[in-house]
Every structure is written in structure tokens, then in C-alpha cells.
């Protein structure tokens, strides 16, 4: 596994089938996620957003892996940290902030769920919950449906290394291995499940567990967006061709606490976090883009300004939007409401 930074100066993207436009778009998604995150964290500290699940640090792993899927055909089963991934899947910053504020126009839940509990049928993002790794089994079921229907769609499911401790995760790996399902498991290993370090969470290595379930498992640098893309694209292509499931472990780090209610100073040192920030996937990708001449400092500044404007407008629109009306709170318990218990 390559550690640390995106190697510079050489053309790595062409052999991956990526065009310069792809790179710019991937870069924009990474930056959009980062700026959304910084904004939502600030809004939380200002008392305007009760709860935030940060993404910062994971953008390379999420955009790289997400980019390997075909939007409109493939299916995304994300977990709550996947802000960058769901942007790739099609959610807009405005929709993200609708969810942050719990507004009626939140496409994931209409303001019913906490922020970062993503879902959108239109974008093939499967609705998620807070219990860990439940979505991985849904991914297995959807992949089984795709196989029964002889569809060439592929399902992706994302989770942290903590999620690999749940029985749901092992069940999904087992089912996917037995039936050779078109399912790609993506572990964003940031080394901490809230406060519990990987060394107390994972016996052995996450990616090596793949062998026991009869599928390929690889580990790569999640801070390297192109590496994350390459590993996931191989798995997606294999799944689409009928070659079955894969497990990809992308090693990364989260820069903020687990959520806005957590305090990471109780379980990891400031020095460790600062050290990890040196491997920040965004500057690393910027260095690559500069080194191949795709963007220069001027263009970077322009893109950053554009995205900041989009986010400022998104926050404003979401702040001004309506909360859901309590008169709607009984809706959608069932498709056809039975007699209500009084």
C-alpha cells in the first residue's frame, strides 16, 4: 500500500481511464464536501445546527470509490459519514443543508432523521439508519435482486472499520460470497469507532477477512483519491462482469471528532491529528493536478470561490426553508394507514 501522498508528476489518471474533466469534477466534489463540513461545523458551534457528522479527511476515499460507480444504474448503500459520497451520487449542497437543519425539503427524510442519514430513491441512495452496518445487508439483498433480474447493475456499500464488528457485516460478506453477488464492500478505515482504536476493534486486518468469505480483498491509501478510484473500479468492473463481490479497505483519518457531540481530545492526541492532516487528501490531489498541469493556483482559487458561493447560497436557502408541519408527522407510517390507535 502506498502511504501518504499522491505521487506527483506522472500521469496516473489516463491509465485509469479518467479524463481531465473527471479529475476536475472529482476535485470539486472533494472540496464541496470539505466546505460543507467546515460550514456545518461552524453552524453547530454557532448554535444553529444541533448535530453534525463530519466527513473531513474521508473525501479522497469517498469520492474515489464513489466515482467508480455508474450513477443512474448502480446503487449506493452509504453510512452516515458519507457526505462526499452522496454528493457524488447526486445530492446537492442545498439538500445537505436542508437535512442539517431538519427542514421539510430534506430529501432524505423530510426532517425526520438526524442529519447525515442519507437516502434518495431517485439517486439510488438507500435510506440509512443509526444502528451500525445494517445497510450492508440491505446491499446484499439489493445485489441479490440484481442478480436474480440478470441486471448488470452493481451495488456499493460503505462502512467504517467499526462496522466490520457487527454480525450484519459478516452476514452480508457471507451471503455475497456464497452467491457471488455484484456487491462491492468499501471500508473507510479511519482507525477510530468513536473512541475505540482499531487495535481494540479489529482482529487481524479488515481486508484479509475477504479470503474467509471467498472474495478478493485489497487495502489501499484512502487519502489518495486516484488509488481509491483504481481499487474500487477494478472491483466494480469485476462485479459488473459477473465476477462477484470484493472488499476494499481504504485507510484514512477523520479530522474532527466523531460527531459534534463527541470530544476527541479524550482519546487521541492533538499531535496525532496534526500528523494525520499532513496526509489530507485534498492538498495531495491539488498537488497532483498542478503537477500534470490540469490546474494552476489561479484556477484553484476560482474553484474554491465558486464552491464557497454555492454553499453560502445553499445555507441561506436551507435556513429560510420551512420546517415540517407537525400535522404531517403521522404520514408515511404505512402506505395505507390502518385505523389509528387512539
Amino acid at each position, binding site marked *: 500500500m502506498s502511504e501518504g501522498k499522491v505521487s506527483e508528476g506522472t500521469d496516473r489518471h489516463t491509465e485509469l481511464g479518467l479524463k481531465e474533466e473527471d479529475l476536475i469534477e472529482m476535485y470539486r466534489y472533494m472540496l464541496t464536501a470539505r466546505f460543507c463540513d467546515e460550514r456545518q461545523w461552524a453552524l453547530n458551534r454557532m448554535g444553529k445546527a444541533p448535530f453534525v457528522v463530519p466527513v473531513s479527511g474521508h473525501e479522497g476515499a469517498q469520492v474515489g470509490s464513489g466515482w467508480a460507480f455508474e450513477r443512474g444504474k448502480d*446503487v449506493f448503500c452509504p453510512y452516515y459519514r458519507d457526505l462526499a459520497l452522496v454528493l457524488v451520487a447526486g445530492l446537492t449542497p442545498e439538500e445537505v443543508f436542508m437535512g442539517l437543519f431538519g427542514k421539510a425539503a430534506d*430529501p*432524505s*427524510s*423530510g426532517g*425526520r*432523521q438526524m442529519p447525515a*442519514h442519507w*437516502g*434518495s*430513491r431517485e439517486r439510488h441512495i*438507500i*435510506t440509512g*439508519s443509526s*444502528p451500525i452496518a*445494517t445497510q*450492508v*445487508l*440491505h*446491499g*446484499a*439483498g*439489493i*445485489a*441479490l*435482486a*440484481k*442478480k*436474480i*433480474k440478470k441486471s448488470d447493475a452493481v451495488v456499493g456499500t460503505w462502512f467504517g472499520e467499526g462496522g466490520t464488528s457487527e*454480525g*450484519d457485516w459478516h*452476514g*452480508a460478506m*457471507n*451471503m455475497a460470497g*456464497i452467491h457471488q453477488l455484484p456487491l462491492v464492500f468499501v471500508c473507510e478505515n479511519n482507525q477510530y469507532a468513536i473512541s475505540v482504536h482499531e487495535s481494540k476493534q479489529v482482529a487481524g486486518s479488515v481486508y484479509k477477512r475477504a479470503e474467509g468469505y471467498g472474495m478478493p480483498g485489497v487495502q489501499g491509501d484512502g487519502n489518495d483519491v486516484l488509488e481509491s478510484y483504481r481499487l474500487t473500479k477494478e472491483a466494480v468492473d469485476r462485479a459488473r462482469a459477473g465476477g462477484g463481490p470484493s472488499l476494499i479497505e481504504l485507510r484514512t483519518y477523520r479530522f474532527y471528532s466523531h460527531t459534534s457531540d463527541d470530544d476527541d481530545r479524550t482519546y487521541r492526541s492533538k499531535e496525532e491529528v496534526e500528523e494525520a492532516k499532513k496526509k489530507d487528501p485534498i492538498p495531495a490531489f491539488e498537488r497532483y493536478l498542478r503537477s500534470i498541469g490540469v490546474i494552476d493556483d489561479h484556477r484553484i482559487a476560482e474553484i474554491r470561490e465558486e464552491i464557497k458561493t454555492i454553499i453560502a447560497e445553499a445555507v441561506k436557502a436551507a435556513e429560510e426553508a420551512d420546517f415540517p408541519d407537525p400535522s404531517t408527522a403521522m*404520514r*408515511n*407510517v*404505512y*402506505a*395505507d394507514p*390502518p*385505523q389509528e*390507535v*387512539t
Partner: protein
Amino acid sequence: MAESSNGVTEKNIIQTIHDTLHDEMKRDDRMVILGEDVGARGGVFRATMGFLQEFGPERVIDTPLDECLIAGVSIGLALDDMRPVAEFQFADFIFPGFNQIVQEAARIRYRSNGDFGLPLVMRTPWGGGVHGALYHSQSIEAFFAHVPGLKVVAPSTPEDVKGMLTQAIDDPDPVLFLEHKKTYRLIKGDVPDERYTIPFGKSKVVREGSDLTCVSYGLMHHYCLEAANRLSTDGIEVEVIDLRSIYPLDMDTVLESVGKTNKAMIVYEDNKFLGVGAEVSAQIAEHALFELDGPVVRIGAPHVPAMPYAPTLEHWFLPDPDRIEQEMRKLAEY
């Protein structure tokens, strides 16, 4: 197999389940059956006998021995517009799937504000009286009926089983379909050959009476009916209601009956404490207190963790027609 005459065929409950699943598998190729031993074995109770040969391994899926997986994979299938009918081999073993059923299946429509729905059927044999002891006798309805987003039904006759299983498969929401395992071969009845559905949330007055109302479901319904028929020879007429559906719960029928008889009894084999009888009783108290000429009586299981094995202990645990008859007589004479 029994012969059809005049458009009906006499069947027991397990045969009815088998035939209904078979008809629906033929009717809708989106339907898949999954569970432990549902394939080559045809289910431990034979509900899916012959299905693997007829419909193939892609639609009749022997899952690993993992009830959490059965629930979670079924949810995924339903999310991709299949029509999964999952079998949990015994209700007692459903609990590894509890999180998927309660946190996921039940909440997916609500939490997505209607963006996603879940047409999912979860069948499971429940109930005691078969020497099944603690882990093959349990009543699980109270756990699941407590959760909005699920429908929980427990039909007790072959005709109702067919109509309600067909309804469950048609239903756009997750349905826990409870099959009392003692009734599988014990209870026979005429089943219409044609396809029909029975809507959930309609209880059924099976026997009319004026002296007291007795509400039950599953095996207990048959025991209540037997007790009521015995009392009739002594001039005590019990109105017997089969709830059929626990959620949605049809209290209108119960309240109308209590308005007529002025006495109410609920019989269930689940633990009495916080069971279905507690809810029915509370709603009678809320809506018909001043109609009552006596206390609401609940007959339920004692507060021990589950049904014990030895015949003497099982008998002690499970309400039977003799005990129900005694309690009915006491209440009628109150």
C-alpha cells in the same frame, strides 16, 4: 390431497399455507422465498415442499443460518422491487433479526418520508402446546406489535390463513405473519379455491352470544370456541371474537360486542403482562368503562421466561379449554 368441490377444498393450515405460497409464486415472478431449510427440505414444516424443483434456486433460497441475514437481505430484496417472503423457522429464533425488523423494516417508510416502502412478508411458526419448551413455543407478537410500521397478523383458520397470507403478499408494508404451529395439522376447514384477500384490521365474530365477550387469536381462539360451546349447554352464551390481526387492531368490533354483553375477557398464551390482552383491556377501559358490568378478565401466561417442557409444566403454563370455561362461567355469573 383433498378434492375440490363447489369451489372449496378442505385443508389443514399447513397445506393452506403451502398452496397459497405456491399460487402466489406462480402468479408473480418477483416473489422469492428465503429462509433456513426452505429449499431441498421444503421447510421443516413442509410449507415450501417441492418449490425448489418447481421454481429453482434463484427464487427459493436456502439462506445461511443467520436470522439477521434473512431479515436484512429480505429488506434489500424488497427495496429493489422484489416480493420477498421470508421464513423464520421458529418465532423463537427471530430475535437475531430484531434489529433489522424493528429498526429497519418498520422504519424505512417513515424515516424516508415515504420515499421508500417495503413490501415484505415475514412468516414464522409461533405458539406452544407441542412440547416445544422454552425455545420452540414462544409468543412474540407483543414485541413486534409495539412497533409502528409493522403489521402483525395471526389468523387461526385455513380460510383466514389463505386470505390474509395473500393480503400480506399484496401488502406494500412489512407484515409479520404468525402461524400457530399447533394449528398446522390440528385445524382443518374449507378453503375457497379462487384467489381472495382478507383485509387486515378486521376481527371476526365467530360465535354470537349475549352474556360475555371473549377475545382471542391463534390456538386460543379454538380453545375459547370449545369452552363457549360447552357453556352453551348450561345456557351461558359467549360471544367469541377472533382478532385475526393484532396490528392493525380492530377495536370497533370488540367495543360493539362489549356494548352488547357488558362483560369482556381476553385470552392469550403470551405472557399476560403487557401482552395483547393489556392493550385490548386498556382500550375497553378507555372507551367502554361504563358499559361494563364486571371486571375485564385476562387469561394469559404466567410471568416465567417461557413455556417449560415437562407435560405437567406445559399444562400449567398454557391456558386450555377447561380453565377458559371456568373463567368464563365465573365472569358470566359475576
